[in-house]
């Protein structure tokens, strides 16, 4: 009998923690980390937050999103001095600090293990707090360790665990997304350009994508349906960009294809009609880029190529007259600006300013006289798209008969004056060798003195080749390269749609 009682006592002791699993979990809200002294601060803020969240999440704790009610708030900081870092966390309830914990390490390699240790400490502290009856929901919380099965592998959170607030991280605020927004459909090829043709309804739109030799028209809904493809580009012809507009306002969008034949411009214009593409002009000596002025007027701008200069002279507006195209209204560009790295934003108090992406990736703002008003300190842009120019005069120095000229990521200005700019990053980016493998999209607003960040998307593990912004639905349509072309291997791309809340 004694033995039976002993066994029962042991069973009760062992099962006690299990019973807690059926209790209501504590709801914990995790803020973005504050990061000091480290490069890539923006990226780290969200990454560290995600690391800690995945280690706290479990039967006893439920990590909730920024907008939801929570029993506890956790704020973390990451401070780097030389190679030594410290992870500090503070747990508060109704503004009152109820627990603190920290962990430190001596190299970046130790960051993830340290985060695991920090999570374990926090769980213990939160357990103590809950055991005291605290101000929490009264749920019993058992102290547990970080699940061994997770190890150091950070698994992407399933889409079901995320709410549908959008995929945008507001400055100083984390907003989770409904997945990555990516349409799970591989598009063949390393695509390099995209253009939004028209919005059909709330669920569907027509988009065009392009690689170096081909243009494809898709109906984009929850999946992509190929409507038409144009492959009539020769072996020495290369597309470097596509843009769309309806310049003659006839209800049919034109597709402006910037292409080179050899080292010379040989661009084309197509009409996108009846679910197909019809060529209406070819061998045009212009680079094209479409921009929206003040959120309404869609214009196509053009620039020409010189004998020595890749981008010759002023910027022009393209005018469509019948089936012909001319360039009108020249605009003098400021320093570092060319058609592909420039847009126009409204100035405070009227007038317009140029926003320019510097060749090194810094955002610049100029007035119409060309005076530089502001220069950012973070790098943006980054494109793998380039064209060749004959350069045999410098062959002795460069070793090549041709030189590469990269074109820059498009800058978009929204109806409300926000400046949208992508950022590509990569480990294999040096000189003229570019292979980006991470991307995000940022938005800024001009406050009269500087560009201030409004939001940015979470980092994607893919190179962003191009994007479009749907003003009406406030959605970003992102063209991401999910598989780079390799030796004997074809590349693949995908479309992601992210809503800007």
């Amino acid at each position, binding site marked *: 009998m004694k033995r039976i009682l002993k066994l029962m006592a042991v069973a009760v002791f062992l099962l006690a923690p299990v019973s807690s699993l059926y209790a209501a979990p504590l709801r914990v809200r995790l803020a973005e980390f504050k990061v000091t002294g480290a490069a890539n601060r923006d990226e780290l803020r969200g990454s560290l937050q995600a690391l800690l969240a995945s280690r706290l999440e479990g039967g006893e704790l439920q990590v909730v999103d920024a907008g939801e009610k929570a029993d506890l708030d956790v704020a973390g900081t990451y401070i780097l001095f030389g190679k030594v870092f410290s992870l500090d966390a503070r747990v508060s309830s109704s503004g009152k600090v109820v627990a603190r914990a920290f962990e430190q390490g001596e190299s970046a390699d130790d960051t993830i293990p340290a985060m695991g240790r920090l999570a374990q400490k926090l769980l213990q502290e939160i357990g103590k707090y809950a055991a005291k009856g605290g101000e929490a929901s009264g749920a019993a919380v058992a102290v547990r360790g970080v699940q061994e099965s997770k190890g150091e592998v950070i698994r992407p959170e399933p889409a079901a665990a995320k709410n549908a607030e959008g995929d945008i991280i507001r400055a100083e605020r984390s907003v989770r997304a409904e997945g990555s927004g990516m349409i799970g459909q591989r598009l063949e090829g390393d695509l390099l350009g995209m253009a939004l043709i028209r919005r059909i309804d709330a669920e569907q739109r027509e988009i065009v994508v392009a690689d170096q030799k081909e243009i494809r028209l898709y109906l984009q809904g929850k999946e992509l349906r190929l409507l038409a493809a144009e492959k009539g580009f020769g*072996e020495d012809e290369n597309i470097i960009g596509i843009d769309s507009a309806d310049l003659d306002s006839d209800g049919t969008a034109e597709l402006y294809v910037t292409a080179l034949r050899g080292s010379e411009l040989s661009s084309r214009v197509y009409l996108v009609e009846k679910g197909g593409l019809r060529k209406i002009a070819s061998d045009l000596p212009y680079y094209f880029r479409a921009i929206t002025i003040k959120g309404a007027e869609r214009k196509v701008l053009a620039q020409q*190529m*010189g004998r020595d200069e890749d981008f010759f002279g002023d910027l022009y507006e393209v005018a469509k007259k019948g089936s012909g195209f001319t360039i009108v209204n020249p605009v003098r560009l400021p320093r570092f600006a060319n058609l592909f790295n420039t847009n126009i934003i409204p100035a405070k108090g009227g007038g317009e300013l140029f926003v320019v992406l510097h060749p090194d990736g810094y955002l610049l703002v100029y007035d119409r006289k060309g005076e530089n008003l502001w220069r950012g300190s973070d790098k943006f842009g980054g494109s793998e798209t380039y064209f060749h120019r*004959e350069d045999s005069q410098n062959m002795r120095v*460069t*070793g090549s008969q041709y030189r590469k000229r990269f074109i820059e990521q498009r800058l978009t200005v929204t109806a409300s004056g926000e400046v949208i700019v992508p950022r590509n990053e990569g480990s294999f980016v040096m000189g003229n060798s570019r292979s980006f493998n991470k991307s995000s999209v940022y938005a800024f607003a001009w406050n009269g003195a500087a560009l201030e960040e409004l939001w940015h998307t979470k980092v994607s593990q893919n190179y962003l080749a191009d994007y479009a912004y749907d003003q009406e639905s406030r959605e970003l349509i992102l063209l991401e390269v999910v598989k780079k072309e390799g030796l004997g291997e074809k590349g693949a791309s995908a479309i992601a749609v992210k809503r800007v809340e």
Partner: protein
Amino acid sequence: MKKNLVVLGAVALSAAAAVPALALENEFHGMYRAYGYVSNAHTGGGTFNLKTDGQDRTNSYMEQRARLQYIAKASDDLKLVTHFELDSLFGGQNGGKYTNTTDSGSLDADGVTLETKNVYLDFNIPSAPVNVKLGVQPYADAYMGTFGNFDGAGAYATGKFGAFTPSVGWFRVNEDKNLAYPIGKLTTDLITADVKFAVNKDVTVGANYIYMGNDGRTGNSTVADAALPNAEKVHTFGLNASAKVGPAALNAFAAYQFGDYKDATNQELSAYAGAVTAKIKAGPGNVNLAALYLSGDDTAPAANHKQEGWQSLASNGTTSYFNAANTWLLIRNGACINTSASIGTNDLTKGGRGLMGFFAGYEGSAGKVFYAANAGYAQTAEERGNEDGAIGTEVNATVGYKLYDNMSASINYAHAFLGKGMNSTTASERIPGGASDAADPYAAFVRIDYAF
């Protein structure tokens, strides 16, 4: 208190270490190129040896070149450009510039290989649209390299005033260190002035002047420098143009030289040169055409004789190019590395006889495959005595594959049919560099390129 100060100092040091050392933007570029040659003329040492027919020998070797460029940008208006070169012959070599060591191609690779290509400061003048480059920098003449494309120590300023792009420069390319004379006395200097005007997007015209003063030719020099020019003072004026006409991209120049040829009695100089090149869209690729004329003299330099042979900066042709030829044997190719030699040396002037050449080719690509085929003919512009000026005719072909975006591999073959001036069995009919009954030279080679 002292302990506190020590702690504070340590904290300050740690904080300083955490801050980036300098606010510099670092930019790196580089290239790697390797050739594997089988040739009866190229030797891997930069010489071109014609072999008598029947004594034909086949050389086979590999060589490589890497270049690394580091640019330290302090701001948009100031940067330091450094550029280095590393050459190696597989198996190593110890001649020429490797007198005291081998290159790194020998066993254990311990040779001294690193060479300076460029080191210069590149800055903009505040509040003026003028850029200045100061130091050892690349220079390309406006005569398609027939006078001199080189890396040299000097200063070069370029302005940008609307459609006008003027520039002026000074280079000191030789300094005789004979201590009997003050430093700066026996020098070879270049002064250049250039202006380009973009008429519109399709037409650019330019004018150019180069003065070369060669004090080392006064007879006082004790330095035997093969790179010294033959002339003492040369003024070169030229006009050039670049235009896009329909499917063709055209480039042309014409230039006239005058001055004092050598230090001997009354040897004046009067020479001229011209070239035109065209790249014409045709089918899936381009047709390349080029013609070159450098004036020559049918009489060897002598007292009281006006020399009419075009002068290059370096008399041995070290710094002379004509890349539009797209040849490998008649005129060295711009893509050559250590094997940078051609029939009868790289001296385009052929010892003052001048040169006349016609070249044609086609290049294209199909997906990742690229190809080219070229042909060219060259002869001296003038013949001396019984000489026959025919140098030869070259045909060459290339087929390559783009392995990665920045890397390609190709196989190439070039064959020259020698003219009588290069292989006549009669010595008086041959021009310098020729050999009696010489076999037609060829070169078959694989090439690997990587650039970033």
